[in-house]
């Protein structure tokens, strides 16, 4: 997983249009970042060092939103990125009442989770996508942004296939 950290950071930096700087893995696979003489250690520190340089407002408005955001980032890193499959149903349930993870706008939490979940979502079957319908809806909405998607492929959420199984719903 730790090798993915760097690619996630790279993708996030590209999305925010900030220079990713020099990213390396330090002791205990902790990502290190150095840019213009400053060094940041640890994934979230690096992430937060990007935020002020971006023109996009991804950090949340109120302090409550900021706190929530930080919790989501920790959650994504500590739990979701380790074994994404185990957390799909939890995330799905959370998204039942939400369009985005924090507040009502796109934040860095959405961005990071998109990159973390991409590999998983790509390999889900249609039935599983249907099972995690709220997650699928969120993911589908995320991936429509070409800046966010970057080189990733569009994950197909076509439900025609499912019409044969449960015609009433599609």
């Amino acid at each position: 997983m730790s090798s993915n950290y760097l690619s996630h950071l790279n993708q996030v930096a590209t999305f925010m249009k900030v220079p990713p700087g020099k990213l390396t893995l330090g002791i205990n696979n902790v990502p290190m970042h150095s840019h213009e003489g400053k060094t940041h250690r640890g994934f979230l520190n690096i992430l937060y060092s990007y935020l002020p340089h971006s023109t996009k407002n991804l950090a949340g408005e109120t302090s409550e939103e900021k706190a929530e955001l930080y919790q989501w980032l920790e959650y994504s890193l500590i739990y979701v990125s380790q074994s994404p499959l185990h957390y799909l149903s939890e995330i799905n349930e959370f998204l039942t009442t939400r369009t985005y993870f924090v507040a009502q706008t796109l934040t860095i939490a959405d961005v990071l989770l998109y990159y973390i979940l991409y590999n998983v979502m790509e390999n889900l079957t249609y039935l599983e996508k249907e099972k995690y319908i709220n997650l699928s809806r969120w993911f589908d909405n995320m991936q429509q942004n070409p800046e966010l998607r970057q080189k990733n492929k569009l994950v197909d959420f076509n439900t025609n296939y499912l019409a044969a199984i449960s015609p009433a719903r599609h």
Partner: protein
Amino acid sequence: MTFGDVKTAEGLKHLNLFLEDKSYLSGFVPCQFDVEIFEAIPKVNANLVNVLRWHNHIKSFSAEEKKNFPPDTNPIRAGRVVIDDSDDDDEDVDLFASDDEEEDATAAKIREDRVKAYSEKKQKKPALIAKSSIVLDVKPWDDETDMKEMEKNVRTIVMDGLVFGASKLVPVGYGINKLQVMCVVEDEKCSVDALIEEIEKFEDFVQSVDIAAFNKI
């Protein structure tokens, strides 16, 4: 749009299903259509969880932000509501309409001309009439039947679309001949069965009539 009137409970239920896998009503960013429907729904029951989520989300935008949403981009609705798309060509939703009105008009004119020319051409050419060439075997009762009289009788039959051709007598055996007569019928005007019945009406001469050959022309 797969939901009906959102003011009814049934419509809301469909909207709930619709929003299950979509974040916005049309496309992937909020648009005026979202606002329109949002304003039609004053309050959402908590059991319609998808509508509630969407409703809360749209509610979070200020009036100013709502005003700046892009116009309704749904191609399905675009057919119903007149939208002037001519100045925002970059919005790639106008799937079937041409983006240049003038070009459209000339294209329509060319098409019209072609249709006209084609129909004129078609009118000049006579419609193809389906015809059949038939050889009938007319069999007499016995060798004493007057074949000449029989042939004369057969040829008296007049039907619309029927033309008799050559005929000849073919020996069958024991001095008995049968009359083979060629005729051409127009399929639409004259039926072969009716013709055979007509011939069989000359009971004094004709025992039976068979179709020896039948070819579509």
